[in-house]
């Protein structure tokens, strides 16, 4: 039994003043139902991905809130794993289907982040770190430490990091739903404001609003297929990691996913990876096996991660240029590749969704059904 994607929908990502969290969720749910040609009453269960509504909106019990949008109030739950919430919600939906309990479910991820100021959103995001062992940190700071470690061990350069950001902005020009439609050269990224040395402003994914939804089924054998998935974990704090130059959660999740889907890195044409900061794209393309350890930066600089290269990384523009409404990202990655498969532009793709500084990683392989 395999899980197929009946339909998908991604809202515009960006600073969406006229859309509340509920509006975004509603839009994504209705959009994915239309895309699936499904009636809302055909949805048997709802899986909601969201990190921040409790802190930013004082709204918990999101599963029930979304279930209320359906006339028959299907069973529902909210899943949270920081920025990996979307990937985890996908797993929850898939496992519910594969258990045989349900045949058709919806997974929706959403986040509303721009109603609060930068300080408050930075503090909210920092809650994905270990609040005791990493007290006083923020994500730019933690990823700065990872960047320094990679630069020290492998000689990864400023230009290599910037090339990932530059490339993602170029890719986003073809994604109407992306938050940014502006290109930046490597020099532009190099010269952007220092945030947490050596991380610069254009190394960082933005604060975004947005939602994405997919309708999953085991009833139908057409439509893009989830070929396999993997779920890896590591310590929440950096201080307890075995390595600062590899995310073992990614390595572990990738191994599971490749094994289940019977794929190798060479089979992957496109991958949506978790570039919350440019270093995380470099780490991802190494840990996913696309490039040798320590060579990710060089590969990025030499154009091997764009069209005409070895593998297209972040065709949507990634988190950097498409935007990163936290709870939506993992679902959007699936939805975006699913859309490309339907358009005949992709045979086999991979999504990589990370929580915190790498404590959680969820990887999906998605392909065209035969």
């Amino acid at each position, binding site marked *: 039994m395999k899980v197929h994607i009946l339909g998908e929908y991604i809202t515009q990502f960006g600073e969406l003043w006229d859309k509340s969290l509920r509006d975004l969720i509603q839009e994504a749910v209705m959009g994915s139902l239309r895309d699936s040609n499904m009636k809302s009453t055909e949805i048997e269960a709802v899986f909601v991905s969201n990190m921040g509504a409790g802190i930013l909106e004082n709204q918990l019990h999101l599963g029930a809130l979304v279930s209320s949008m359906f006339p028959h109030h299907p069973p529902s739950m909210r899943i949270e794993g920081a920025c990996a919430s979307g990937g985890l919600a996908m797993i929850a939906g898939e496992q519910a289907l594969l258990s045989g309990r349900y045949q058709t479910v919806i997974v929706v991820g959403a986040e509303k982040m721009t109603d609060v100021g930068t300080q408050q959103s930075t503090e909210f995001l920092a809650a994905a770190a270990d609040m*005791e*062992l*990493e*007290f*006083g*940190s923020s994500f*730019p*700071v933690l990823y*700065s*430490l990872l960047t*320094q*470690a990679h630069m*020290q061990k492998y000689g990864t350069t400023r230009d290599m990091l910037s090339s990932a950001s530059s490339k993602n902005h170029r890719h986003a020009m073809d994604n109407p739903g992306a938050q940014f439609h502006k290109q930046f050269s490597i020099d532009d990224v190099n010269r952007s404001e220092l*945030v*947490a*040395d*050596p*991380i610069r402003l254009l190394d960082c994914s933005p604060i975004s609003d947005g939602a994405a939804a997919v309708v999953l089924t085991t009833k139908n054998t057409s439509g893009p297929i989830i070929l396999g998935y993997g779920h890896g974990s590591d310590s929440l*704090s*950096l*201080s*307890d990691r075995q390595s*600062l130059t590899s995310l073992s959660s990614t390595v572990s999740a990738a191994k599971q996913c490749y094994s289940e889907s019977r794929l190798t890195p060479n089979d992957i044409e496109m991958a949506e990876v978790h570039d919350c900061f440019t270093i995380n794209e470099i780490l991802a393309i190494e840990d996913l096996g696309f490039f040798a350890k320590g060579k990710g930066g060089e590969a990025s600089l030499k154009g091997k991660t764009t069209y005409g290269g070895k593998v297209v990384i972040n065709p949507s523009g990634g988190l950097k240029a498409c935007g990163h409404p936290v709870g939506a990202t993992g679902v959007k990655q699936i939805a975006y590749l699913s859309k490309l498969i339907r358009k005949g532009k992709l045979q086999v793709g991979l999504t990589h969704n990370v929580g915190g500084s790498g404590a959680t990683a969820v990887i999906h392989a998605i392909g065209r059904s035969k």
Partner: protein
Amino acid sequence: MIIKPADYWRKSKKISKLLGLSGKVLFATNGFALVSIGAKKYEFQTVAGSKLNTGDKIVTVFRRLNLENNSSLVGYTLKVKKI
């Protein structure tokens, strides 16, 4: 930031074990550092306004958080200072 009394109370019992320990900076940026103390690694804020670099020798010190308002509990934490 509201400092919860029970949270303050639990944390204050742990501070003496890590106070006054010496170590070395592994990586540091913007007021935060990953340090090694003995065989273990820790993450700490750095004392106000200081800039640490990889390899710097540090000691853990007790410092005020300055996140309170006029009526709340005063918060403290361990930070690291270059020696």
